């Protein structure tokens, strides 16, 4: 994937959030930092990580206006990461990412909560549950590989 398009999308989304809400100067400054990182960071295999970190700054600043901006910017950033690492080559991979996007948007109702601790606890519980399910599935796979049957 050509990295210029997602970078442009992130910058435009950041600017749009800055001018449409209360983030204003903070949003513009975050976009400035992001553009500096994108243009000035050297070309290496970990470039995607600096882009993700700088893009997260834009997403957090955009969240001052609306959490929808945050979600949109993060999803574009993660799609960029996947493309950069060659994980969106097949239609199956792209469908899986669309499914991830749909499920990730379910986080948006958190906007109804005013403070962080409760949603943070819910997020940690969900993450632990996800890791637990993966662990169970992994050890089931290890078991079936050893024995040939579940």
């Amino acid at each position, binding site marked *: 994937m050509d990295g210029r398009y997602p970078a442009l999308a992130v910058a435009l989304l950041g600017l749009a959030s800055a001018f449409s809400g209360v983030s204003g100067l903070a949003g513009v400054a975050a976009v400035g930092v992001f553009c500096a990182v994108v243009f000035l960071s050297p070309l290496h295999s*970990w470039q995607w990580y600096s882009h993700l970190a700088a893009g997260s700054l834009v*997403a957090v600043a955009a969240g001052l206006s609306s959490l929808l901006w945050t979600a949109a910017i993060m999803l574009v950033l993660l799609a960029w990461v996947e493309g950069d690492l060659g994980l969106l080559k097949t239609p199956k991979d792209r469908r899986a990412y669309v499914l991830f996007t749909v499920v990730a948007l379910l986080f948006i109702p958190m906007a109804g909560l005013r403070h962080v601790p409760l949603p943070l606890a819910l*997020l940690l519980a969900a993450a632990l549950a996800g890791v637990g399910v993966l662990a169970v599935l992994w050890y089931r796979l290890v078991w079936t590989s050893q024995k040939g049957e579940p």
Partner: protein
Amino acid sequence: MKPSPAAEGGAVLAVALAAYALIFDDLAGLLAAGTVLFFLVFRGAVFLHGISHLAATISVERAVGKRIVRQGSLLAVETNVSYDPGTALAVAVEDLIPAVAVAASEQKSRVVGPGRVALRHSFRVMAAGDTSFGGIELVAKDPFFSATLSLRKPALKNPALRVTPQVLPLSGRGKGHGSGDEEGGSLRLLKGQETRGYREYITGDSLDLVDWKLSAKYGEMYVREAEGLSGGRPFIVVDLPDRNDAPERDAFDRYALAVNGAVQGSFTKFGSCPLLILSGGDIVTYIPPGAGEKELFQTLAGIRPVERSVHLYRYLDPAMARARIRALRREGADPGGFGESLSSTISAFGGDSVPVIFRQQVARVMRSSGAASVLLYTTALGDLSHIVQVVQEAQRQGMPVTVRASGPAGAGAVGRMLAAHEAATVEEV
């Protein structure tokens, strides 16, 4: 399943964003952290789905020279592994050799097409009986996760191998009826040795071992297999050489083969085999009697010359010191002469010292093994002081000892070393 540095970096970013969100009470930071965290879980699920699909589609074809092989012989294998080429994961495979085999060469991997890999390697099967390959080891990775999976489904273990025992020449001369009438054949059964079982004749077997009655009955040639030791379960002690005194590779392989044969024979007959592996004054490993066959042969597969850190040649055993003093006194040492001064020196420096820790450890495991006899294998290279300690301890516990040493020179060296301990029988491997 292990996270790669990329996944760890993502997790660090998520934690940093969550910390920011918690400190500044900013839901946008939490949403960003949650999205990154959820992305990592999503990548984990995709990876798991990919490797599950690979494990389900993998198939193996092995080309082996022969299905019936002799114990210890070299077997070359070409393994063709096929899997779904549509996977996004980077895949590497390795052939798992039988549990009782020792790899003789590294596996050379060659990609022969999309989703097809050919592996070439060779190994030696060290234990007789029916066995099969261990399966396939699958290594898969993507930018966020990696995993190693041992696939041991029956279909991936084919073909089955039949390993026939190696016939080891029995040392010693046959029993004749008088002078000039002794049989010099080295393949006769020793006194007290019994036939453990029968197997089909293989080209190269001595005709002396053919059981003609059984062969006539079934119309095929069968040979007798002798047992190692008669009586109760033996306690097998394996002495590994020092790395500096290591024998040639082939000689050590023959030694390892003899050890494997003895352990396998003992395990087959008694269902267990206490095994002590030592090198000089070092105890390397002890496998208690209850251990399984797999553990035993995995341990034996790893034996090789080691670096000895403890040597006992400077240690004067109290029992030996007392024996020397008694011998000197029996000879009637001259007052003030060399004999008396040697006797007083030995008494002063060695006669009352406590047994060395190595001896205490050997005594403990020998007692707990519940064995009826001791079978000691040694390459007889380098310092042999520890062999004397083991033999003395076995005698102290009333267990007959048989020492099997590599080659005639080794048997001779051990024989001279143990000349004073008449209860020990020395044989040649």
